[in-house]
């Protein structure tokens, strides 16, 4: 059984019957049948919201969190890893060990291993739970990213933000429940699949200048604002007359209402994404103005603002981690672009007392191989990169009832296969839902005769990391 009645937007609008043109969005949301109405979690929740920091491309865990002495010793030489021989290898067929770039050292009281390339993350070592034996199923970006977001490598399924919105509704009636900042171009990563579209992610761009619009079609294209309002009034009069003739039509009511919301969004959205009235200290904490990381700093700061305002699931995507070649030059840049914004977010949440009930997840769609990749076949080892590796990689979580300052899971001497504390991303999904008070086996939606779940038929809550 599903925990929530399956009612589409159309159904609940129909149920609210007689015209409510004068009612505002928040009244609608409060209506019991609204898909976005606040839902009571299944059991007491540790977290109320999630911020997902998605490192698109696959950050290199051997360089950042999981160095191996064996690989260091064997640097430049062939290693014989227990690889899957059914797979084609391009540029990695020599299996040359590639030593960790820079130093990875124990940090803080916890001694969590973090690279020198991430000094800011090192400074929050005691706040995070490092998952060192993450595991996923596909080694190509598109299917792997899809699986990370939806649980499936192929089908078009609802993304985790949509499932969470469906499970918990929204706490801020004037904002969407799921916002994705700077999302990947693949719309499936923030789509609601077969869930009602009210749960789909809203794509937001943090404007770098006046010309950029935070969301699509926000800028008025008419002669002047007054003309636009007049036009909308004219249309809405027609719309309401049509509705009157129809007497009952939930769809029409929904369309009328969305036009009013859209109109209000034109002023509300720029205000919301405007970070200018944040204090200088806060901006500095994230690295706003620092040319290496300004864009991500603004995005992370916005994520905090949205979370604070009640958005259930906020995602920030930070790309550029796909280091197939010359990883030693490229990796420090990716770190510099993300380290301070991510760590700043944790510190900021903590100082505001928000970290306790905000679950932050940092991860790529997979990790990278401990052996090198050289697509040219002729570069010296120092110029090599690393291939994708879903067999094991590292992610971290913070806040939201997760044990701080621990490392969980171990990999073999290569850093290839988990040997303990293996966390499949279905397990990660189950754990995220669990912290929100949702049972991943009971949060279901009937589609084509079957009850679908975020975790499909898999997933175990990782109890070892719960505080």
């Amino acid at each position, binding site marked *: 059984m599903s925990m929530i009645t399956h009612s589409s937007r159309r159904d609940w609008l129909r149920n609210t019957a007689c015209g409510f043109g004068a009612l505002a969005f928040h009244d609608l949301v409060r209506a019991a049948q609204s898909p976005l109405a606040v839902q009571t979690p299944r059991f007491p929740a540790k977290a109320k919201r999630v911020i997902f920091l998605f490192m698109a491309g696959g950050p290199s865990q051997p360089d950042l969190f999981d160095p191996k002495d064996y690989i260091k010793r064997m640097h430049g030489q062939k290693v014989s890893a227990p690889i899957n021989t059914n797979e*084609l290898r391009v540029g990695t067929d020599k299996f040359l060990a590639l030593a960790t770039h820079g130093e990875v050292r124990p940090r803080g009281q916890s001694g969590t291993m973090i690279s020198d390339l991430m000094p800011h993350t090192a400074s929050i070592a005691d706040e995070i739970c490092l998952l060192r034996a993450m595991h996923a199923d596909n080694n190509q*970006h598109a299917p792997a990213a899809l699986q990370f977001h939806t649980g499936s490598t192929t089908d078009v399924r609802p993304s985790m933000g949509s499932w969470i919105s469906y499970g918990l509704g929204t706490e801020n009636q004037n904002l969407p429940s799921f916002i994705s900042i700077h999302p990947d171009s693949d719309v*499936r990563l923030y789509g609601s699949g077969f869930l009602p579209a009210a749960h789909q992610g809203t794509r937001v761009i943090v404007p770098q200048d006046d010309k950029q619009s935070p969301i699509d*079609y926000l800028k008025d294209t008419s*002669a002047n604002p007054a003309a636009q309002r007049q036009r909308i009034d004219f249309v809405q009069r027609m719309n309401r007359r049509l509705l009157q003739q129809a007497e009952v039509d939930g769809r029409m009511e929904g*369309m009328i209402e969305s036009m009013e919301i*859209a109109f209000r969004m034109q002023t509300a959205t720029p205000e919301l994404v405007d970070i200018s009235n944040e204090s200088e200290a806060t901006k500095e904490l994230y690295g706003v103005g620092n040319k290496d990381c300004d864009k991500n700093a603004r995005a992370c700061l916005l994520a905090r603002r949205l979370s604070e305002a009640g958005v259930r699931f906020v995602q920030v995507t930070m790309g550029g981690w796909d280091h197939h070649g010359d990883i030693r030059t490229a990796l420090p840049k990716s770190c510099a672009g993300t380290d301070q914004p991510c760590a700043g977010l944790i510190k900021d949440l903590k100082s505001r007392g928000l970290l306790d009930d905000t679950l932050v997840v940092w991860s790529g769609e997979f990790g990278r191989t401990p052996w090198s990749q050289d697509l040219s076949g002729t570069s010296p080892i120092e110029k090599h990169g690393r291939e994708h590796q879903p067999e094991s990689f590292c992610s971290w979580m913070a806040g939201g009832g997760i044990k701080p300052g621990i490392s969980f899971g171990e990999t073999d001497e290569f850093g290839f296969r988990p040997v303990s504390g293996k966390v499949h991303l279905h397990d990660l999904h189950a754990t995220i839902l669990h912290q929100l008070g949702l049972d991943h086996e009971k949060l279901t939606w009937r589609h084509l005769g079957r009850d679908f779940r975020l975790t499909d038929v898999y997933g175990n809550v990782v109890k070892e990391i719960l505080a």
Partner: protein
Amino acid sequence: MKRTFQSLVAASLLLSPARAEDGLAFFEDKVLPLLQQRCYECHSHEKKIKGGLALDLKSGWQTGGDNGPAIIPGDLTKSHLIKAVRYTDPEMEMPPKAKMPAGEIELLEKWVAMGAPDSRVAKTGDKQARTIDIEAGKKFWAFQPVHDAQAPAVKDASWALDPVDRFILAKLEGVGLKPAAEADRHTWLRRVSLDLTGLPPSPQDIERFTADTSPNAYEKVVDRLLQSKAFGERWARHWLDLTGYADQIGTSNDVFAEHAWRYRDYVITAFNTDKPFDRFIREQIAGDLLPAATPQERAANLIATGFLVLGDVEIVAVDKLKMEVDLVDQQVTKVGTAFLGMTLGCVRCHDHKFDPIAQTDYYAMAGMFRSTDSTHKTDNGVWSCVNKTELPETVEQKVEREKRLTTNDSKINDLKAELEASEKEKAVLDVKIKTANKHSKPPIVKRLQELTPRIKVLQKDIQHSEFFAPAVPKAFAVHDREQPTDMRITIRGNPYALGDMVKRGVMRVASWGELPPIPERESGRVQLADWIADARHPLTARVTVNRIWQKLFGEGLVRTVDYFGVRGEAPSHPELLDHLAMRFVRGGWSQKQLIRSLVLSRAYRMSSAHDALAMQRDPDNRLLWRMNRQRLDAEAIRDAMLAISGKLTLSQGGPALPLEFPENAVNLAPKAVNPPAILFKKHRPVHDYERTVYLPVIRSAGQPGSAKLRDVFDFAQPANFTGKRAETAVPTQALFLINSDMLRSRATELAKDLCESTPNAGARLEALWLRVLNRPITSTERDEANQFIHSLTAESAWIELSHALLSSNEFLLRL
């Protein structure tokens, strides 16, 4: 079952009575605590029975889970349980979170080696394995033969224009409801025009129809619409929704599917020529194996098999065997959804949980696609590509192509000549600049600044012209393998864990006899297609007429249009569904004929007006007491706006992707690590004015250019196979309507056209309403519109008013 029995015998043979007691003591002391501690959380009746395996009973591991018995007593290498705890197979590592300590693994090994003595006896309430009973399954309505249903008697016989109406009316009369009155002619004309062509009627169409007092006025309209090319352009898109069609292969790296458009055009032509649906089925599943009378027919047959490969094929998979069986799964699933309304994908890993479909049914069909070649490995890194087949050409086509080839060759020669000259000049200048002085240097620098980028452009242009040189036309298509074979069950879809071999065949629950033998050296796709396209098939015709009904009436008679299984919804009018299915088959599987009858029925003429009593008794309108209102789909919204503003440009079809612009094509070098791909740097201007069906479809990103509207208005995700799109009302859509450039452009064009064609402002208002809403303006609206116009400046007033109408609910809905 047989295997379980054997293992029981083996176990009893292994243990002599004396040693058995020691064995049981060992089990209870050492093994049982281990099982409880390590396994019960996921494999016991108290907690969960994952993968169908319970380890809290002896019978649990004997029967085993989805992989068969978990333990073969005495045989360590064949016991899945030992394999799993040893962590030798990455696909099956148990316990999943961490390997057990070596000592514990040794205990289990010892236990299995001694024959796995187990003192636990079966409890009552032990979970019975579910077996699929095909004969019992056949009793479900959807698997019953289609029944030749006679139209029932009705009280108000004059209401019925077609037998369809009697089925509808009888049900309504049965519950004391009245059908809605007829819609006025304006409403009906707009409805039927949008439903059949995706375009609104023109003012001339409206005038002609409303003035036509002849008894066949309605027929004339319908025949005109069915004969227009626009009919196929709309209905082809409905079909494409079921195929996962995109102009992109897979989802990674924007790999272009440069021949996919041929399949799209094939589908448009199929609808426009009213290709019998049984023929349409055969061509798409087995066109390559069908005889053809002409080269054109042969080409069409080959192109049709694109159906099997134009979904989301993940060609970048590094495990090619897995990639191939994944594609087989997609093909079985697609055939199941599109033609049969069955969720066959579920049966890849286990018998269907709800429907009478066994794993053997799945692998019987999968074997046919496993015997079919769909992809091949390319020279690009780890990549594969969907197979392409050369198409036969007519003599004229060949002559014309060779002419284009000559032109292309001379273009390449010119480019090469220029490149050579430029490179020479640059080489000279590169030397010269080293010794140049203050005065002679600037002109050299300037010239080099021109030359360097020009050389790059030339290189790119040459590569592009060579890559896209006119060649024998090709289509994405399949062909049979040289050695077609039956397929073995893959356990949990893992191609390296094989179960029993399954003879190629079809779904038994929907069969009426033995499948004709599959000729040697053939895949069996012909036999599969013949079975699906057979008049006796219980699903094909029902599923197809229900899809057509849904497009015209807003909801299917079976609302779960893609799923006719046990958990689907029962038909609201089962006799009507059968009547239509029977009529469809008897009418030679003609879709146009069926559509024609339906839109000429009284039921289709009903207004969508409210009725308090009916609303109370049947709020979902399942009995069809009125017409369902529908929101236009993305294509109809965009196309109607283009038609209304007078900007719609007719298209002859052809390549969807703007690959003619060199800047849009990357990775053209042979053997590059990544395959050729498209970037949408430059748009083909005519795309802004062509019907939406002709615009490129991208699977993994937002839709390019003016196709972007698809993302806003519920376009079917082109990795899915879906007969019914979601229909949502979200603020994003309203923002698009309020502020998008597209709306603004259409409104501006419409206003300009109106102002030029109709100088009189009063007449202009009439014209505007007729064009956008396809009905006369009311007096209230006239007053409001006049007020609105006077409150704005002259140049913007008509644009704003046009914009208003184009964003109105009445325009976005068809009533």
